[in-house]
């Protein structure tokens, strides 16, 4: 049996992942990662935005659903933060922090949720199904797992075109890891040896389904070796660790190492969507270490290490609120799409559109 050996290897990676330990002190100390504060601000902005979206949804101002990344902002922000111009990002439904850090304007979010005709999806698609493929932010389809191979394809194309120094990062949940599409995409990434980082967030639930009905291996990071990826475990509630581990993974693929799989552990601190009260999550689970709120943990670190003072923190908070309010107000004033003005053509080649009925 391989398990003992594997466990040892894993705890090794875990140790690497948990970053310098931070001593509390009154004097300003170095942050646990040089982009810690920058990352924290994206997390703060995301939390502020998503709380606002939730309240709009509760107020009946958003049609469809709202899906937030509460509790996953630290992992997500690290996914977006280390990507550069030319890199590819394939976020999923809990990646607002990463999207923002990658460069997605808040207005894209509010326009999409509020169904503005001017948004990137023009009312055609909603909520988290948005992207800017021309800016290398892929627009996810719902079918989980399907974005991995698409990301692989963008990277193969870049290599074929002779681009240099690019990487791709794709996000997945532990639920999505069970799809066939995910498996095929992972294997292909390894066969093609594209510079891909896959960040899997195990938030312990796929909708209402707990881990024990999702998979039966001891640790999902054990899948890395079976694909020929390098695998790392990560405490997703620890922002410093997220920046270290995901930042290093990005650095490694950029330097030509094999594809990287990072498996982060957190708890989803919301319902699956805002329609879901998540009453199926037992209290006991909420008391686990992985259930900590990464935003609070990060803020505590800031306070403990005295990285910035309370006034600055307050200013950041206000600033986040202002940005969110502005993005919402702007989107709310924008026109909605209208059925009879819409261009009902699914092809870019209008001349090739099928005409099932005679023009009237």
């Amino acid at each position, binding site marked *: 049996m391989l398990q003992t050996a594997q466990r040892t290897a894993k705890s090794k990676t875990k140790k690497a992942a948990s970053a310098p330990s931070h001593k509390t002190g009154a004097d300003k100390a170095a942050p646990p990662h040089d982009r810690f504060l920058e990352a924290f601000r994206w997390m703060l902005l995301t939390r502020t935005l998503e709380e606002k979206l939730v309240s709009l949804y509760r107020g009946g101002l958003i*049609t469809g659903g709202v899906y937030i990344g509460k509790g996953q902002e630290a992992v997500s922000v690290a996914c977006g933060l280390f990507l550069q111009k030319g890199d590819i990002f394939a976020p999923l439904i809990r990646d607002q922090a990463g999207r923002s850090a990658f460069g997605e304007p808040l207005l894209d979010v509010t326009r999409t949720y509020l169904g503005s005709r001017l948004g990137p999806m023009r009312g055609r698609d909603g*909520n988290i199904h948005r992207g800017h493929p021309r800016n290398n932010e892929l627009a996810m389809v719902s079918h989980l797992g399907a974005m991995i191979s698409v990301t692989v394809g963008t990277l193969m194309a870049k290599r074929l075109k002779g681009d240099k120094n690019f990487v791709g990062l794709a996000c997945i949940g532990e639920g999505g890891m069970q799809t066939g599409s995910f498996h095929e995409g992972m294997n292909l990434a390894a066969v093609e040896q594209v510079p891909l980082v896959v960040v899997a967030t195990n938030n312990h639930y796929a909708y209402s389904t707990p881990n024990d009905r999702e998979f039966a291996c001891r640790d999902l990071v054990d899948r890395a070796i079976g694909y020929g990826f390098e695998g790392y475990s990560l405490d997703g509630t620890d922002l410093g660790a997220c920046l270290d581990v995901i930042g290093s993974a990005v650095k490694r693929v950029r330097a030509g190492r094999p594809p990287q799989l990072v498996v982060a552990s957190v708890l989803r601190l919301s319902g699956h969507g805002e329609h879901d009260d998540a009453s199926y999550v037992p209290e006991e689970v909420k008391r686990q270490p992985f259930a900590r709120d990464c935003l609070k943990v990060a803020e505590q670190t800031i306070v403990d290490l005295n990285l910035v003072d309370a006034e600055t923190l307050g200013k950041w908070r206000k600033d986040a609120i202002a940005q969110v309010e502005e993005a919402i107000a702007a989107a709310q004033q924008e026109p909605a799409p209208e059925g009879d003005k819409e261009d009902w053509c699914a092809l870019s080649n209008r001349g090739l*559109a099928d005409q099932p009925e005679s023009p009237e």
Partner: protein
Amino acid sequence: MSITYLEAIREAQAKLLRDDERVFIYGQDVGGTFGGAFKATKGLAKEFPGRVLNAPISEDAIVGTAIGAAMQGMRPIVEMQFADFSSIALNQILNQAGTHYWRTNMPIPITVRLPSGGTKGSGPFHSQSMESIYAHYPGLIVMTPATVEDAYTMLIEAVAIDDPVIYCEHKYLYYHLKADQLPEKGLPTGRARIAREGRDLTIVSYSAMMQESLAAAEELERDGFEIEVVDLRTVKPLDTDTVLASVARTGRLLCVGESFPWGGATAEVIARVTSQGFHLLDAAPQRLNAKDTPIPYHPNLWSTHRPNAKNVAAKARQLLRE
């Protein structure tokens, strides 16, 4: 008492689990205290321990598993979280379940429930109507209930049938449709229903488009037209005889469907009526489908994308003038 379309589906499953120990339910989030994304299995896991099981996000394997269980004499019901995700299970459905009886002489009695069709704000991947794909391939029965009563009796029938059944339940009808009580028995599988009698024009439809068709018929009644509305109930087998008999009475045919325009149920109905009942027609048969684009998220777009009572009525009026 008043019962919704969704509750009828839950009740049917409760009855099936109660009456037939071969039945079990497999799908994402169907079990536990949760009872499914739409609560169609609410409470059943508790009432029937070990027989309402949560599955991983693995549609291909979920259906494969159901097929294997069916081979061993079970009667599995699979819930897809949304019909749209059955694209992942399509190979198992078409090539494994659909071919098995013909190849080996052993039928595969599985029922695959597909929460289908558009609702406001659901967008391109949570709104699809896939009956046309499944009906195109051999070896499957494709049900598309349009009433609370049919939702109930047809699901019970689906599980009783030895062959694989794709049961397309419409999400829009879940809460919109109510009945006073559930019937013991419905029409036989494969028989269409005259939902409304008339003599000026036949509208053939199914699933949620029945609502729009019936509303259109009512609107036209105010103008003095008597519209007959036929509910296909199953799109495969398709009850050509009932449709032909109706067209024989009315001379005019309008087919209304919510799926995409190219080659769906509406095309099939028109092809059958014109090849078998050409001389019954007094005017060109017409059809109305969704538009040939993905299904839009925004309610303004969505309500234009799908056929609705207004444009069904308009199309019918046009056809009545011919």
